[in-house]
C-alpha cells in the first residue's frame, strides 16, 4: 500500500506541468507568497510593542486583486508583502479585512500595482463543494516551482479554527502533503476553484483539517458589503439530553432528542428571544436536533447544531426554534445577534491593538485582557493571578453588577509620589474618588475630581484603599515617568 501511494504521488508530480492549461488557474498564476511582519503589543508594558517577527505563507488570488490568507497569518501585521513565486517580484500590500474567529483575512495592494498581476488568473470559490471529492493542496518549491498534493475529502465536523473554544465547520481530508511552504495554512483547490484553506495537517495520520469554501464565501460576501458583520452568537450553553432520568424530569417522554439550554447571557440572542434556562430546543429551522446535539444537514450529513446558530448563520438572521418547556411545545423565533470581543468583560482575544491603559504618576492601570493573563505562560490558568483568572471565568457575575470592563492596577513604576506602593500589583479597581470604575475612560474621568488635591483609589483586595497626591502624580507624569521609563504614551483610552 505505501509503495503504491508514493509511486502515485511521484507520477503526479512528474505530470505537473501539463496539468495546467495556459488559461486555467494554476499555482503559478493563482497563488502568491505572502510575507507578513507582525508585531504584537506587549500586554505587560502596554505602551510598547514586542520584537517584530516575520511569517511567510501562501495566499489564494481572488478577483479584484485580493489575496486570501488565514487570520492566524495576518495577526498584528505591521508590514505586508506579496511575492510572485516564480519571479520573486514583490509588492507592498495591506490587510483589507480580518476575522479572527473565522480565521480569514484578505490582503490588497497598498498602492499602484503596475503590471504585478498581469497574466494572473484569480480563483473562484467552489462554494457548492461537498464530500466526497479529490482536492489539491497547492504549494511552491523554494525555486517557485509548483507542488500539488492530492487529498481525499471524506468527512465534515465542527472544530476550532485558530481561537480555542470557537467551533466552526471543517472539512477533513486524508492524503500525503509534503511540507514545503514553511506553513500548513495552504490553499486547497478543486476543479480550478478555491475549495478551502488547509488549517493544520497531522503528518502521522495524514489527516488535513480544511476551512471549507462555504465559510470563505460568507466571509468574502461580508467583506464586500460594509460594515463587516462577522458571525452571530446564541448566548447560551447547550447540553445533551441523553440521560433518561434528566429527560423524564424535563417531561420529554413524548418527544425525541433536544438540547437543554443553560447559562443564558443577558442581553444576547437567546435571552432577547425569550429563551429560558431549562428550555429544550427540539429543532432549529425545522431541522430536528438529536439528544447528542446533532442534526442531519442536507449537504453534510450529521453535524453539531451549533453550526446552525453560528458559522452557518448570518448576524441578524432569524431562526425558528421549536422548544419544549415544562411539558408543552413552543415555536420561538430567535434573531441571532453578535457578541463582539468588546462586549465581554475580558476581551477573549485582542490583535492589532494594545489594551486600554492609563498611567497615574507611575501607577499602571489597564483593562483586563486574556492576553495579559497569558503572559504567565502555557499554564496561565493555574499561574496567572487567581483573582483575575476567576474574573475571566465568571464574567457574567461582573456584567450583572453593571461592570463593562475590568480595570485593574497591573503594576507600579516606582516614582517619587508612590512611596509605599511599590509592591502593589494585579488589584481590581472598584472606585476612584468615590466614583465606580467600569472602564479606563471612567478612570480618566474620575481622576479629574480629587478631594483636597488627593486621589482616593479603592481595590477589591488588600490594601483596599490608597491615596495619591494629584499634583505630584501630574508632575511625575510630566517629568519623571517619561524621563526615567522613556514612556511617551501615558494613556490609551480608545
Amino acid at each position, binding site marked *: 500500500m505505501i509503495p503504491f501511494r508514493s509511486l502515485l504521488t511521484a507520477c503526479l508530480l512528474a505530470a505537473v506541468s501539463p496539468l495546467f492549461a495556459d488559461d486555467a488557474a494554476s499555482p503559478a498564476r493563482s497563488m502568491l507568497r505572502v510575507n507578513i511582519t507582525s508585531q504584537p503589543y506587549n500586554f505587560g508594558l502596554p505602551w510598547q510593542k514586542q520584537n517584530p517577527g516575520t511569517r511567510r505563507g501562501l495566499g489564494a488570488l481572488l478577483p479584484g486583486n485580493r489575496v486570501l490568507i488565514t487570520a492566524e497569518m495576518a495577526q498584528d501585521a505591521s508590514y505586508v508583502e506579496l511575492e510572485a513565486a516564480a519571479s520573486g517580484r514583490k509588492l507592498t500590500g495591506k490587510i483589507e479585512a480580518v476575522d479572527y474567529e473565522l480565521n480569514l483575512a484578505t490582503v490588497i495592494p497598498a498602492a499602484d500595482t503596475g503590471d504585478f498581476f498581469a497574466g494572473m488568473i484569480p480563483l473562484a470559490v467552489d462554494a457548492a463543494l461537498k464530500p466526497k471529492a479529490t482536492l489539491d493542496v497547492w504549494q511552491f518549491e523554494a525555486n517557485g516551482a509548483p507542488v500539488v498534493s492530492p487529498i481525499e475529502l471524506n468527512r465534515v465536523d465542527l472544530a476550532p479554527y485558530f481561537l480555542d473554544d470557537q467551533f466552526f465547520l471543517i472539512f477533513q481530508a486524508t492524503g500525503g502533503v509534503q511540507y514545503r511552504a514553511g506553513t500548513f495554512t495552504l490553499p486547497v483547490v478543486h476543479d480550478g476553484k478555491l475549495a478551502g484553506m488547509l488549517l493544520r495537517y497531522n503528518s502521522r495520520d495524514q489527516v488535513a483539517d480544511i476551512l471549507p469554501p462555504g465559510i470563505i464565501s460568507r466571509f468574502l460576501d461580508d467583506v464586500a458589503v460594509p460594515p463587516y458583520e462577522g458571525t452571530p452568537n446564541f448566548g447560551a*450553553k447547550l*447540553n445533551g439530553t*441523553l*440521560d433518561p*432520568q*434528566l429527560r*423524564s*424530569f424535563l417531561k420529554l417522554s413524548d418527544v425525541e432528542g433536544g438540547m*437543554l*439550554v*443553560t*447559562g443564558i447571557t443577558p442581553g444576547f440572542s437567546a435571552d432577547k428571544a425569550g429563551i429560558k*434556562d431549562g428550555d429544550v430546543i427540539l429543532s432549529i429551522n425545522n431541522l430536528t436536533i438529536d439528544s447528542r446535539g446533532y442534526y442531519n444537514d442536507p449537504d453534510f450529513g450529521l453535524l453539531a447544531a451549533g453550526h446552525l446558530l453560528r458559522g452557518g448563520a448570518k448576524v441578524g438572521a432569524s431562526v425558528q426554534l421549536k422548544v419544549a418547556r415544562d411539558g408543552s411545545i413552543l415555536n420561538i423565533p430567535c434573531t441571532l445577534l453578535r457578541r463582539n470581543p468588546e462586549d465581554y468583560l475580558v476581551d477573549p482575544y485582542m490583535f492589532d491593538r494594545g489594551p486600554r491603559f492609563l498611567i497615574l504618576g507611575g501607577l499602571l492601570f489597564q483593562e483586563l485582557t486574556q492576553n495579559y493573563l497569558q503572559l504567565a505562560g502555557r499554564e496561565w490558568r493555574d499561574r496567572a493571578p*487567581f483573582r483575575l*483568572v*476567576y474574573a475571566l*471565568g*465568571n464574567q457574567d457575575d461582573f456584567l450583572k453588577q453593571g461592570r463593562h470592563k475590568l480595570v485593574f492596577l497591573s503594576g507600579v513604576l516606582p516614582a517619587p*509620589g*508612590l*512611596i*509605599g*506602593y511599590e509592591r502593589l500589583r494585579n488589584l481590581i479597581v472598584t472606585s476612584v474618588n468615590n466614583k465606580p470604575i467600569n472602564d479606563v475612560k471612567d478612570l480618566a474621568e474620575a481622576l479629574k475630581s480629587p478631594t*483636597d488635591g*488627593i*486621589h*482616593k483609589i479603592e481595590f477589591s*483586595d*488588600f*490594601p*483596599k*484603599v*490608597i*491615596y*495619591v*497626591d494629584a499634583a*505630584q502624580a501630574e508632575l511625575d507624569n510630566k517629568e519623571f515617568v517619561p524621563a526615567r521609563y522613556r514612556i511617551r504614551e501615558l494613556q490609551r483610552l480608545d
Partner: protein
Amino acid sequence: MKPSLRFLGAAAAALLPASLSLAQLAPPPQAPPADGEKTTSLGRQYEGIVNIECNTLEVDYRTPWNPATPGGGSGTGFLIAENLFMTNAHVVSDASRLIIRKVGDPTPYRARVKHIAHDCDLALLELVKPAAAFSTVEPLKIAEEVPKLDTTVKVVGFPIGGERISVTRGVVSRVDYQEYSHSGADQHLAIQIDAAINPGNSGGPVLQDNMVVGVAFQGYSGDVAQNTGYMIPTPVMRRFLKDVEDGKYDRFVDLSITHFPLMNPAQRKALGLPEDGDLGVMVASVDSEGSAGGALKTGDVILEIDGHAVESNGSIDIDGEQTELAEVVERKFAGDKLALKIIRDRKPESLEITLKGASHYLMQANRYEQQPQYVMFAGLVFQPMDKPLMTVAAPSSLRSRYWFQYFTTDELYRDKPQPVVLTNVLPDEINTWLREFSGQIVEEINGVKITRLKDVSDALQKEDGSSFHLIKLAGEGRPLVIDRKQAADAQPRLLQKYGLGASAYIE
C-alpha cells in the same frame, strides 16, 4: 494579620520528623558513671531529652470511608515537669501509639498526648504509667526571654544520621514572624538559627546557658536555603502552657484584620496624620466575624496598641525589642481586652476590643486527628471543603478554587459555613450520565440550600412529592436528576460494590 501573610513566602519550610525506618534505635550505650563529675553534669543535662516514636494512622480523603493507613515517624521531646514532656504537635499528630525512650535506658515507655496545639505546633505528652526511671530526672527549665541575635545556642535531639543523641551548635540568626507549616495557616514568632536541624530534631530543645530557649520545629531543605532552621521561641511555649492550665487548649486569639504600612505622604495626609510622622498603620480589611468585627473598619489608623506606639511599618517596641504589632495579641487569651488608639475619619478615638479566636480560617488549615466526613448517595460522594480534601482532590473548577482561597477574605462563610463539594461519582447504572460533574460545589438539593454537609443528608431524606432528587451545582445550569426509587435500590448495591461501611459519616 494571619490572612494577609498566609500566602507570602516562596517555599514552605518543611517539618522535620524522621521516618521510622531511619530512626529504629539500637539499644543505647550504658549510662555514664555516676561519680564522674564532668560527665555527670553533661549526662544529667541531657537526661530529660527523650526520643519519641510515633505510630500514626493516616486517612485518605479520596476514600473517606476507608480505615486509615498505618505509618510512623520519630522525633524528640523533653521533660518540663513531673511526667510532662513537651514536643511538636507534628511529631505526635494522628498517633495510634507513642513510645518514649530515654538516653541510656533501652525500655520503651508508652506515652499519650495530654494537650496538642496544631496552630503553634506544640504538644504535651505524659507516660501512660509514670516510670521510676524518670523520677530522678531533672526537668529542663524554660528561659524567660527571647535569646539575642548572634548569641550561641545548642540543638539537642535524635535526628537522622545516627542513632544516639546529637548536639549541634549555632547562633540566633533572625527573630521574625514565620508561617508554621504544620497548620499551614498560622503565623507566629519564630527564631531562625544556623545550627544544623535535621529530620528527627523536631520537638527537641534548643538550649542556651542550660535553659530551653526554643523548640526546634522546621527548616528549609538545602536546595532552598542553607543553614536555615527554625525554633518555636519561649513566648509561644509559655502561652501554650498557660492556655492549657485550665485543662484544655483554646488556640490563639486573633484580631483578624489586615493592615497596610503608612509610608506615603498623600495617604498619611488623607487619613489625617502628619505627613512626615512615622507612626500609624492603616486597617485594610476587617473580618466582620473576628475580634475586631464591628469595631475597626477599612481606613482606620492604628496609632497605639495596649499603650505600645505603632510605627508606620507595623512594628512596636516590647521591652526594648522591635516586633510586629501582632505580638501584643499573640500573648493574650480569649476574653482578654485590647486597648487601641486610632484615628477614624481624621479624628482620634479609643477602642477596647475583646479578643477571640478566629475559626473560619481553619477550613484552609491542615487537619489532624480527624476522620473525614462524607455522604455517599447514588454513587455521588459529597465531602466538606477543607485543606486536606483540596490537597488530594485538587478540583480544576475555578469556582471551587475560589471558594477555598477566598473563604475568609471574601467572607464566603457567611453564605456557606461548610461548603460541600461533589468530589467523586462511583460508577453505577444510576449515575452513568453524571460522571463529568465532580469537583463542583453543591448549591441546592431538593430545594434545600446546602450550607454544610449535614444539609446534604437532610435534604436527601426530605420527601417533596416529586419522584426525583434534584441536585444543583454552583455555576452549572444542568441539574443532576436522580430517580428516587432507583436511588433507593442502588444504595445497598453501591455500598457493597465499593466497600463502604456506611452511607455517611457526619460529625
